């Protein structure tokens, strides 16, 4: 337990220091969400209708941004070998690392989404719905993303391959995140139905992601 806490605290420290990617994702999120109205045109009624979708796409892309460094940095400075040799189960270490990654990159996205919602002319109800769905859904993106991060170490390459591999797996999260946010505003489905499925996806990825990532790291370490 001490070892897991140490990994968690270390990752939090690294992410918030100079060179860590904590705020980069938020800036990218901001850039994407500001670009889209230029492409679509400043039609406020249209923006209000597709606003939840824009926020979700922005958050999805931003959460992928810092992922390929999650294990690659540890691999380069050798700490990944120590983690692999250590006594704590690798799956739990990965969950600790993913949690700190979510707290430093995913949670800021959730916190700035109301401000960006104002740009997109969203009503307070819609802003609350998007925030809640992002709060429940972005951990799933992180836990699915750790599979890609571990594959990046195993294949010794990041770049464009990882989004190609990871993005198809995130489609269900996107579908139910956006449909829950839309259900809160226009219906006709009750808000709780897609939200419950979104929560189920997060819980499932909490199991599948770390197990798959641990398998990839073990296979890659040989």
């Amino acid at each position, binding site marked *: 337990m001490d070892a897991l806490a140490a990994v968690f605290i270390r990752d939090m420290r690294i992410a918030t220091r100079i060179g860590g990617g904590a705020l980069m994702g938020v800036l990218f999120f901001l850039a994407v969400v500001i670009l889209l109205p230029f492409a679509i045109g400043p039609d406020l009624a249209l923006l209000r209708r597709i606003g939840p979708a824009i926020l979700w796409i922005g958050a999805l892309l931003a959460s992928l941004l810092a992922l390929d460094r999650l294990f690659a940095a540890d691999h380069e400075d050798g700490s990944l070998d120590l983690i692999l040799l250590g006594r704590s189960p690798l799956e739990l270490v990965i969950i600790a690392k993913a949690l700190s990654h979510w707290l430093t990159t995913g949670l800021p996205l959730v916190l700035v989404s109301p401000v960006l919602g104002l740009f997109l002319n969203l009503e307070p109800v819609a802003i609350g719905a998007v925030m809640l769905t992002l709060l429940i859904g972005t951990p799933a993106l992180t836990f699915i993303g750790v*599979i890609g991060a571990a594959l990046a170490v*195993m294949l010794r390459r990041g770049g464009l391959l990882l989004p190609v*591999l990871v993005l198809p797996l995130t*489609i269900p999260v996107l579908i139910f995140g956006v449909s829950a946010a839309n259900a809160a505003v226009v219906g006709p489905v009750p808000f709780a139905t897609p939200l419950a499925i979104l929560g189920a996806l997060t819980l499932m990825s909490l199991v599948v992601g770390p197990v*798959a990532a641990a398998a990839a790291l073990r*296979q890659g370490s040989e």
Partner: protein
Amino acid sequence: MALIDFANPSRFVALVERVLPWLVVATLFTFGVGLYQTFFIAPDDYQQGATVKIMFIHVPSAWLGMFCWGLMSLASLGTLVWRHPLADVAAKSAAPIGAAFTFLCLVTGSLWGRPMWGTYWVWDARLTSVLVMFLMYLGLIALWRSVDDPARAGRAAAILTLVGAVNLPIIKFSVDWWNTLHQPA
């Protein structure tokens, strides 16, 4: 000779060299018979007319697209558990075949959908989940093509294949879970 003896790669290759020509002939023959029956023997549907014949391609393609992923998942177990090179090869060569059949399934479905549903494409649960499978096939092929060490690429692809296998039951039951345009099948 026990079945396990074929796990020896050189013995397996020798067997393949002997059997493959016969399999090619059998494939061409059954394809010929199937296409002949499709176009000249099978009657038109009373409602769909001749377009029902698209189904003779569409449905097997869909099944084969899913079977190839299932086969790759089994091969992936072989890769991860036994580190068997034949399992790598099986998974690697099944991916383009599966991608091709999934592509055929999507194209024939959309050609059938235009006269029958009035649209080439809808974002229905079945169509979307099959499209996701097609994207994952392409991702796997991209992975095989971008990593030079075949053993490493094989193990990475195996992990990704097993994660992607979650999609198979979603495809199968999508028509039961969501009441959208695609017929239950």
